[in-house]
């Protein structure tokens, strides 16, 4: 399996996700500079977390116009799986690959902590190694994770089973109390129509190593390797 991690000026979780990918794939992903015109042949493209362009103007707004993103959008539309984590999720919404937008957290504060997520479906390349409705513990670290879309879009996302993860309590019940950012309908991540593009605020790469205190993020990388190798 070949994976590419796109590196923007200000990306800072590029190394972290590369470590998790390498652990799962057995080889290093390609690190691709934003100024390149083309993504090398890849079974998976990852848009990592961080503060591309300092999150100035709007998170992800300027990186979305990087030369490389034209090719990323093209490939995503042709079916190459794309995983956008945190700032990568911002980019996916800014490029229109995913609907909606991520606004300032309702608390107005940056929040870094473990949250519980409900795995809404396990039939995608990203989630096969999870159980459906499984409750997993994954960290968030963001200032702008408050998912917003109009009611019609939210209804459509739910109707098409495109909500990937929701913030939930220990019993798996999505709840506002468990929601770290005020996102609508406790949405933590969503898919595109084909289920091949996933954007999520939590960082699975941060809990994929027992030394870091947990491995609930690991099955996502295992799923991808299982599906795409």
């Amino acid at each position, binding site marked *: 399996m070949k994976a590419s991690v796109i590196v923007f000026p200000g990306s800072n979780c590029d190394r972290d996700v590369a470590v998790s990918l390498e652990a799962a794939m057995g080889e290093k992903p390609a690190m691709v500079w934003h100024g390149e015109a083309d993504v090398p042949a890849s079974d998976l493209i990852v848009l990592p977390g961080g503060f591309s362009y300092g999150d100035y*103007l*709007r998170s992800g*707004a*300027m990186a979305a*116009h990087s030369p490389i993103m034209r090719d990323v959008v093209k490939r995503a539309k042709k079916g190459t799986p794309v995983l956008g984590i945190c700032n990568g999720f911002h980019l996916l*919404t*800014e490029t229109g690959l995913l*609907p*909606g*937008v991520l*606004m*300032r*957290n*309702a*608390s*107005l504060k940056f929040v870094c902590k473990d949250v519980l997520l409900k795995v809404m479906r396990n039939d995608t390349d990203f989630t096969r190694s999870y159980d459906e409705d499984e409750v997993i513990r994954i960290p968030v670290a963001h200032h702008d994770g*408050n998912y*917003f*879309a109009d009611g019609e879009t939210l209804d459509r996302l739910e109707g098409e089973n495109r909500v990937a993860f929701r913030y939930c309590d220990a019993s798996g019940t999505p709840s506002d109390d468990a929601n770290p950012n*005020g996102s609508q309908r406790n949405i933590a991540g969503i898919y595109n129509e084909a289920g091949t593009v996933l954007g999520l605020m939590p960082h699975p790469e941060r809990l994929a190593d027992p030394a870091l205190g947990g491995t609930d993020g690991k099955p996502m990388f295992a799923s991808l390797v299982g599906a795409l190798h």
Partner: protein
Amino acid sequence: MKARIKITLKEGVLDPQGKAIANALGALGFDGVGDVRQGKYIEVELKESERASAEKTVESMCKQLLANMVIENYSYELEDA
């Protein structure tokens, strides 16, 4: 010429920063503060001298980058240098 661009949140979009400002104003004793909405103000210097083409350029800037049309509106004024 110079474009003075205002980016505001569309009506109905939750504005937690605006809400926080309203609360803070209330706490400072400013009674009678209703809804508060905040936004961005951007000045762009343009080499254009023709108003019509400058307008077109600014529109395009706003739509492509400066505003996120999912949640934001924009308005602008042009000022001759």
